[in-house]
């Protein structure tokens, strides 16, 4: 029978490196993709993935399972991603309004134009990246990581209603940007 994440963590606690390798193999892809989608930067996503697993390894000794392992894991990813963005912002010194949704380049394009799958994917990436951080992380966690509103709320440290509101606002924006696209969208 396959070990659960919590069982693997208790094995790591005892110094079992094989258990860590198994945990890494199981979650590396989702951690990398969460960071990559949120930051839209391969290099940063790699750095964050490394840092996340180093922290998991270090925290194994004190880890006490309170919620789902992935909730804890994605909270680490979210915190590191927000730190990365904060560092970037402080380096750039550009004031950004967290709640304002900026206009994106695709706005001026002809909606009747039939787009290829690749072009639509590009629009998708642009639209998601145009979302404010608080909405973006909620969308990524729900849509791409397949988490429930409760789990997203636990990760973001907010109520279920707050998550629903964020996702609703994001969907409204995305439907304006992507809802009228013509082409292969599936």
């Amino acid at each position, binding site marked *: 029978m396959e070990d659960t994440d919590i069982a693997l963590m208790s094995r790591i606690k005892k110094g079992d490196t094989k258990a860590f390798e198994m945990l890494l193999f199981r979650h590396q892809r989702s951690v*990398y993709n969460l960071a990559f989608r949120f930051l839209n930067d391969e290099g940063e996503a*790699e750095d964050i*993935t490394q840092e996340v*697993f180093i922290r998991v390894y270090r925290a194994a000794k004190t880890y006490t399972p309170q919620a789902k392992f992935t909730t804890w894991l994605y909270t680490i990813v979210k915190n590191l991603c927000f730190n990365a963005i904060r560092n970037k912002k402080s380096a750039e010194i550009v004031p950004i309004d967290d709640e304002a949704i900026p206009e994106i380049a695709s706005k001026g394009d002809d909606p009747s134009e039939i787009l290829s799958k690749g072009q639509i994917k590009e629009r998708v990436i642009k639209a998601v990246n145009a979302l404010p951080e608080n909405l973006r992380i909620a969308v990524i966690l729900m849509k791409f990581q397949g988490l429930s509103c409760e789990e997203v709320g636990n990760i973001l440290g907010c109520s279920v209603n707050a998550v629903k509101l964020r996702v609703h606002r994001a969907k409204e924006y995305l*439907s304006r940007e992507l809802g009228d696209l013509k082409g292969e969208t599936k």
Partner: protein
Amino acid sequence: MDCQDVKNKLSVYIDGDPDKEQASLVEDHLRGCQICSYEYRRMLKAWETLDLWEDAEPPAYLRKSILYRIKKEKTVKSLKVLIPAAAVLIITAGIFLFYEGSGLKDEKGLITKTQEPLFQAKKDAEEVNEEEIISNLHILQEKDFYDSLDILKKIDYLPLVEEPYENKDNEKSSFLESLSV
């Protein structure tokens, strides 16, 4: 349920509203309202279009790099424990060998090198004095000893020694008699 209510519930409806009653109210409204129905299709399409952004494959070296860092961390961690432990062991062994080799240990504990001669001299003095006293006790039985004492008493330049007794010869003989008994 009016259009604004439905608009506010569209997102939850798309995700699959667990409240079945609310969901059926939204459905009823969408059947009869073209504007809301259009909004719903648009939002649903946009949400489904996100699926085009598939998962990326993390680079192969990433896993190796993480495992390398963990291995390094593990080594550093064990060194952090081993180095102080080894240092304590070496210092303890050094102290033990130092005292064991120099032979400065006795029953009372460790004594320093500077204290040793003083300690030994004191010990010797105690032993010699006791032996001397015992070996010299026979003097008290010899007549010459008391003659010497008489001579010493008569020396003028010893003012502290005075003649306390008048019948010296009598007392001396009685004292000698008591010793001989």
